[in-house]
């Protein structure tokens, strides 16, 4: 576990560096001007509505769900790959079965059109 302590140290230092940058800027920067336009940028027009008034496409949600499935699978492959030498043929066959089930799902998703954006 000792090799993890420097990570903690690094994380703390990173936080300090970022905070230091923010502080330096706070000391150096212009005062907030009352003349600054604080409406969200919309190519110079007065915005008639705000981003949070609108809905956005459900496809982003689908992509997120698919990502979770595939990412869990990837992380499952990592320890298997490291130990493949010891697991030998049995490990390989086991993983092929696992991947086959996953690919079946992948083909299903593809044919249902979940991967098509347009």
């Amino acid at each position, binding site marked *: 576990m000792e*090799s*993890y*302590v*420097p*990570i903690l*140290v*690094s*994380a703390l*230092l*990173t936080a300090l*560096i*970022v905070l230091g*940058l*923010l502080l*330096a*800027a*706070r000391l*150096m*920067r212009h005062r*907030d*001007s009352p003349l*600054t336009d*604080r*409406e*969200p*940028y*919309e*190519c110079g027009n007065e*915005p008639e509505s*705000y*981003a*949070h008034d609108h809905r*956005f496409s459900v*496809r*982003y949600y689908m*992509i*997120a769900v698919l*990502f979770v499935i595939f*990412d869990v699978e*990837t*992380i499952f*492959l*990592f*320890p298997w*790959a*490291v130990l*493949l030498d010891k697991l*030998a*043929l049995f*490990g*390989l066959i086991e*993983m*092929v079965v696992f*991947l086959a089930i996953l*690919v079946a799902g*992948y083909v299903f998703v593809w044919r249902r059109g979940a*991967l*098509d*954006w*347009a």
Partner: protein
Amino acid sequence: MSWSWLDWLREAVGQPQFTLLFAPAAKFLVAIFAIFLLIAYLVFAERRLLGFLQVRLGPNRVGPWGLLQPIADILKLLVKEDTIPNRAVRWAYLLAPCLVVAPALVIFSVVPFGPSPTAPGAPRWYVTDLNAALVFVVALASLGIYGIILGGWASNNKFSLLGGLRSAAQMVSYEVPQGLALVGPLMLAGSLSLVGIVEGQARLGLWFAVPQIVAFFVYFVAGVAETNRNPFDLPEAESELVAGFHTEYSGVRFALFFLGEYANMIVISAIAVTVFLGGWLRPFPSVEALAFLDLVPGVAWFFLKVFAFLFLFIWFRGTFPRFRFDQLMDLGWKWLIPLSLANVLVTGLVVVLVDRGP
């Protein structure tokens, strides 16, 4: 008087806390300082190179050959007003840029810049050698998505929201092939530690980019997409989304986003070099006739390779037109994922069937 100070230092170096806490802290600070300097001049190099690629000069007025330009840029960004739009979600808006930079910087604590010591007392060229370093890198690299989508959403600007969503969808999509591409080299190295992976390449006498050329290709394409760089820079697409998720940001918070993007480019390059191009190893590590190349220290090889990748990033930006969003999704989900899955299966088969001796 100075003696007591020296004695104190000598005693401190012997303490266990020193090797555990202060030595890594000092190393990390040096690494981060080097990375900051690299980023500052990477931005400058990019502007000059893009200038040359487009048959113009690029910034050449501040200092000799424009070499002081990065310093001028940093000062300018620090003194700018820090604007917060009217309807922004304040806490998220302020937090987002920090969430982009911080993970990218912490990753450098596990990157091996140079060889592990062969002689006792020789310096180790990394902050720490984590036994699960690659998982750590992948995990931290994906944390950056939070900063971008949070920044895009919190601005309450239509362009920013679209940019943030596109960016999240894109980074999430390309993370899968990127992770799968790393599985191949893992099977060859039999280790998750980045030091272990480079040592695996020394054992094999070959950079993993040779047997894992497909994985290498997939990793780098996915890496370019992960960093939102051309030709996958849809989240920022100036001409349609006016800079996307950071439209509303100004001053130091914009600088943090910028820092994060360039730090991520260096992370992608450093991991690609470590996993596929032999890290600190010289070219053709098994060819005895090239042993004179070992005169160049490992750190120099490492950074030379990283610079080559960074040059590729800039070259891409000067060369390729932007993808359309549906093309981008198709490339990630319908091409790179099957390709990297096939690579995993083939590599697994070869590793199991080929006996690599004792």
